[in-house]
């Protein structure tokens, strides 16, 4: 998977309208924004070049708004890059949000089928993984009850179990850890670990050092849509932590 000078400019309104109704607070000097062809854009990705090989487990780090989710969505084919080239071979799977396409009034078993079908799984594949999903979600008799009777944690467990019942070549993950009770978190970690060991390439956006240490062998640190560091995990985490210590937040500075 190769990205060559990939740019993603997200439109945020017409120049003339935004100038009248919401003029830039800093007089238009914020480097994350650009004005071109009569429109104002946010530079979500600004020239990202990276080569990810089979076997790479890439941890995407960076502050909020750095471009992590945008990069994942470009790789998934959800956003088309404004400029640059992407060469990507293989089956791509995304773990961006649980409960895709689920119906609150349908039972857990029906939702397994609806959600898995929406995610693009074949009937045969769903049939082969349904028992595994039910077992992993561990909802007991709730699995046959409408989903509106589930707690938020139970819904998340079912969504997570469905989304991870796949065998992709390239797995893109956006912050799926940390939900559910402690026991489920441990099992989720084990399941992710198993899934990741099967996938050729993993790109995982997270704010957790622990997750990166456990799952990743490479770090991609993004800032303002650009690659700030690309390399070995331990070194990347060290530099990132040092940077975070040095750069206090605005609030702290005040």
């Amino acid at each position, binding site marked *: 998977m190769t990205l060559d000078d990939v740019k993603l400019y997200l439109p945020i309104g017409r120049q003339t309208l935004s100038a009248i109704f919401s003029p830039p607070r800093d007089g238009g000097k914020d480097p994350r924004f650009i004005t071109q062809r009569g429109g104002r854009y946010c530079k979500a990705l600004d020239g990202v070049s990276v080569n990810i090989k089979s076997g790479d487990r890439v941890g995407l780090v960076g502050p909020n708004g750095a471009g992590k989710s945008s990069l994942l969505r470009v790789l998934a084919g*959800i956003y088309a890059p404004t400029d640059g080239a992407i060469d990507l071979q293989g089956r791509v799977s995304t773990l961006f949000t649980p409960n895709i396409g689920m119906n609150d009034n*349908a039972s857990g078993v029906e939702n397994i089928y609806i959600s898995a079908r929406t995610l*693009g799984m074949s009937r045969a594949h769903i049939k082969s993984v349904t028992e595994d999903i039910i077992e992993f979600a561990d909802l007991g008799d709730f699995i046959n009850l409408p989903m509106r009777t589930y707690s938020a944690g139970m819904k998340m467990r079912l969504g997570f179990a469905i989304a991870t019942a796949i065998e992709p070549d390239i797995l893109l993950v956006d912050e799926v850890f940390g939900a559910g009770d402690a026991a489920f978190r441990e099992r989720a970690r084990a399941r992710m670990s198993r899934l990741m060991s099967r996938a050729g390439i993993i790109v995982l956006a997270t704010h957790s050092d622990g997750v990166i240490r456990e799952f990743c062998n490479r770090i991609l640190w993004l800032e303002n849509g650009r690659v700030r560091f690309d390399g070995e995990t331990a070194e990347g985490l060290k530099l990132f932590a040092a940077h975070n210590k040095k750069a206090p937040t605005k609030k702290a500075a005040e």
Partner: protein
Amino acid sequence: MTSIDKLGGEVRIHSIYHGLARYRSAVELGWYDFVGRFRRSKIGVLWSPIQMGMFVGVIVLLLRKGLGDGEMSYALYVAIGFYAWDFISVSLTEGATHFTAQAGLIKNTPVSLTHITLRKVSFLFFRSLLNAPIPIIAIVFFGGELGFNLLWLLPAPILYACFTYSCLIVFGVIGAYFVDFSHMTQTVARFLFFTTPIIWQGDVGARKLISDYNPFSYFIEIVRAPLSGNVISPTAWLVVIAASFGGLLLAVWVQTAFRTRLIYRL
């Protein structure tokens, strides 16, 4: 899962191809969407034909005496006309919110717009299929045609599917850009209901003029004529085929042009 070999320009065509290739899941999910709407109700999907039957019954009782029966019974005329119009009207009104209602899916999965749209088309067909008892009852009781003439009915589902697909794509994109569009389509649909020969007959004078220049008259005609023993006029074939396939070409262009930009508006 969805396989994407290359991104950028090709993904747009890829998207249409992938959506068509997954037509079976679109049909299944359309069915789940349909039954999902009535899941908590006691008589479920039967509400749909009951609503239609009530409407047709009331219209026939209220307006029958004021209008001449002509060659076919007025009840039969209204039942078939309203059945066909219901499909068109829902395509128009639901089209405007078609993509905004699926924002979560579009923003988080590499789903094809074609797949989402085929799912909606099949939803509308299931809805229509369950409403079918209304025109069938009218045909049986009010002297409709059930012979070989019915073969002329066969192209209608294909033409309606093309038309609905175009409406959903084109109106869905416009609706994502302009929030007011969904309110506008509801108003226009109501206006079109009264300017299309559904509860009145476009045989003479101003009515004929309105009927002749309204393309939806011909969409209704290709369903109504075979079921009432009449012949579909060449004008009707021409208008409906041109609108359906022309609409389809427009939809493919809109889908190709806006696939990458649509997401920023959701």
